[in-house]
């Protein structure tokens, strides 16, 4: 899995925002906010990643169990897939 390149993550006073680029503004004229865990996963998705890799990174970074990390990552991936933010 890998994210599309037509969004840029910006930080406003500690809040992570995904801002659509170019024509993507037409599809999604709003703001997507990411919490710190989601922002971490988003950064990792700049390269092709597996669910296991992402969960492992989250578990290590945020000091949680691998099971909990995998559930959270899966939830996030499902959401951004629905929004069309992942490469198919």
């Amino acid at each position, binding site marked *: 899995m890998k994210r599309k390149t037509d969004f840029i993550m910006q930080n406003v006073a500690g*809040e992570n*925002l995904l*801002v659509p*680029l170019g*024509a993507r*503004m037409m599809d999604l004229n709003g*703001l997507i906010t990411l919490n710190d*865990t*989601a922002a971490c996963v988003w950064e990792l998705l700049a390269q092709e990643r597996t669910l296991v890799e992402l969960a492992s990174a989250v578990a290590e970074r945020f000091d949680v169990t691998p099971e909990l990390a995998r559930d959270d990552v899966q939830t996030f991936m499902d959401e951004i897939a629905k929004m069309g933010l992942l490469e198919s």
Partner: protein
Amino acid sequence: MTAARVALPTDYGPLVSELHRRAATRRQPVNGTFELTERCNLTCQMCYVRQAAGDQAVRTKELSTPEWLELARQAVDHGMVFLLLTGGEVFLRPDFFEIYTPLTRLGLILTLFTNGTLITEARAARLAEAPPSRTEITLYGATATTYEAVTGVPGSYARCCAGIEALVKHRVPLGLKTTITRHNVGELDAMRQMAHDWGLPFSAGWLLSQRRDGAPSEAAACRLSAAECVALEATDRASATEWTETALREASLGPDRNFYCQAGQAAFVVNPRGEMNACIDLPLPAARPLETGFRAAWEQVQRFVDTAPPLAPSCLACDARAYCPRCPAWSALETDTLTEPVPYLCEIAQARKGRYGQPA
């Protein structure tokens, strides 16, 4: 807490307001305005800018395409996320898209202000390729007669309507607004209906200030009286609610600080000559980001705001202060100071207090 979540805001406005408030606490210059030109193809009597479209002396002082883009890159590096492009009339710049298109790749939430009269089918199509988050067009009337009495340009009403139609056709995010004067106040409802018919949001403003450059202005003659302003805003539910709520907390009186908005806290403006100021209505402190670097210029703007003189004693003592829209920019435009009361706004504040205030 590890939950990875995405929030798609259903109410975009409150989220943006909250982001600005938080940015202000960190002095992050999150909100920029680039005033690409002061020149305009319309000649509205009440306008606070109004330089002639063909004024070559003004044009030659405007920043070039590479200068605007360099400024944008530096601003983004320092935290700018929201950027308004305005004028004058931005489409008078033949290089508009050479500036605009690269900006759409920087991760900015762009807003575009225009009078719409220069938006052709081709320009609308090009905007639609990478549209701004929001475009706003100002209507000056609901008929050609009234619109052109305000703008002073024959044919401008039809061109404005054609520009709106083109943007609607190409699904470019668009809202309409109007500047109310004595000449077009009678067509406010008709303008609102026009927006409704196009399926577009609509807003109105009616506080007309003098010209920013100190040149003679007909703004005072175009203004509604204070009583007319307050009667008009009472027809707007949001304004009426705001002032009713103000009345309920009147004891808190309103801002003690002279600058009480986002200017110099989270917002800045760069004028066509490349000077960075706190506010579009106030050409101070005229910092030079392209010469000193963005950071030094932004720090200069913050210092200007932080060291501004306090409110005038008469304002501090005023029992209608909570209802008053005065700010340093208004004082500068009307009194050539940063602090003195603006008689027109004093009248409006008193009229609001009379309408919404609690009985003694």
